[in-house]
């Protein structure tokens, strides 16, 4: 059964959209600025209203607020909370987990190690490098075992070498955790590297996949 399904989803800048993402699949949404890519992720995350039908495992998400969807969302600006250390950013995500304090502590340690950011656990986000912030935000987004990971231009602000390292790390992590992911990007190489399938969004509408997107020629 498909993990995520959008049927005739519309928003003032988007759609109607039909999209299915299978369990464990990584789909990249490729498109130019202003195509509605971020809007699409925010709709799925529960941060924007929409019309149409959006389901997870056949269950409608209509009226389900963001805090009940258990979707990992990595925004373009990361939005790590600057008043908390990296570790506490993750602990905040686990605050309402129905697990014991010990289990939450163990999960925090585990995810810090998995995302290779344990050595910066006590640091505030604003003191980290770009790549470290990315790892910290990814660790926080994954902390609650999300059923879907949404990545909004995750590495657009990093230099090429850091970006390539993180592409490899994310790929390994995704395979290791069997994550279902929707990745928004305007970088065709990133889309092809990170995803199993690439779809193209232009002016709010999905186009059939093309080898060379029109804006890259």
């Amino acid at each position, binding site marked *: 059964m498909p993990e995520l399904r959008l049927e005739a989803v519309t928003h003032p800048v988007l759609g109607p959209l039909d999209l299915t993402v299978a369990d464990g699949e990584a789909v990249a949404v490729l498109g130019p600025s202003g195509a509605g890519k971020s809007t699409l992720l*925010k709709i799925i995350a529960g941060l924007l209203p929409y019309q149409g039908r959006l389901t997870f495992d056949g269950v409608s998400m209509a009226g389900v607020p963001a805090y009940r969807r258990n*979707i990992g969302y990595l925004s373009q600006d990361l*939005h790590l*909370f*600057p008043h908390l250390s990296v570790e506490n950013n993750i602990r905040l*995500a686990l605050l*309402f987990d129905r697990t014991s304090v010990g289990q939450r502590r163990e999960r925090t340690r585990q995810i810090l190690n998995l995302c290779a950011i344990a050595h910066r656990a006590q640091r505030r*986000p604003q003191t980290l490098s770009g790549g470290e*912030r990315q790892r910290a935000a990814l660790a926080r*987004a994954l902390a609650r075992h999300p059923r879907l990971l949404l990545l909004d231009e995750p590495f657009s602000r990093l230099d090429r070498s850091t970006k390539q390292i993180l592409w490899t790390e994310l790929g390994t992590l995704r395979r290791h955790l069997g994550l279902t992911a929707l990745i928004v990007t305007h970088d065709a190489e990133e889309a092809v590297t990170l995803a199993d399938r690439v779809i193209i969004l232009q002016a709010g509408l999905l186009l059939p996949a093309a080898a060379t997107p029109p804006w890259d020629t």
Partner: protein
Amino acid sequence: MSGLLLLAGGCLIAITVTVLGALLALASHLPLDALWLALQQQETVFALRLSLYTSLLALALALLFGTLAGYLLARRSFPGQALIETLLDLPMVTPPLVAGMGLLFLLGRDAPVGSAMAAAGWHLLFSPAGVILAQTYVATPLIVRSARAAFQAVDPDYAAVAGTLGLTPLWAFLLVEIPMAGRGLLSAAVLGWARALGEFGATLMVAGATRLHTETLPMAVFLNIASGETEVAIACALILLSMAFALLLVIRLLAGGKSAGQGQFQHA
């Protein structure tokens, strides 16, 4: 240009000398032993205690109402917002005596609100509760304004991201937005407390000037100057000055750092 700087320097010196002169005149008016005695007077101690007690309660109320109202004004636009914001700013520019008179007429026994409160057994006028009401009234608009600015400086997307991490809007507000607006809110609290401590005009109208009953520090200065007992008046004035100086220093120190959520991300 140097002529202009010279003129500006002269103005700065004139202002500083005037402020300092007034302070020194006040501080040197009483010999130290007389000042020490005045500070120990029952009336001074009562005024200090009442001022602390009422102003802290007023601050708590003003923070509760002001923070929530400021948050709403920062996050939402609604019809009539400009009118409401102008109304909220009004107590800041109205003479406190006028504001106090309005409150007096609103809460008087002849007014519907006042008679309803009297029927419920609430007697705010001419009591310490009236002092708290007057102080809250003058401190709240300051806190609303500062809280609105503090929340506007925090990107609302932080709360949205907190939502995707399982935090309800209330928890996101308490654990993310309030701490991120913390420095601004703390400045607002200090400013509001300073305003409440120094409140006189509205308190005079709403709570009256009764010795050892509604006698806050400013009221003690007024009553004792009026009756020619300058020792207690000077002691209370010096306490007010010291507290105001300390609070202004705190505000200055708080303003020294950057607001949370502003410009700390420098992407590699």
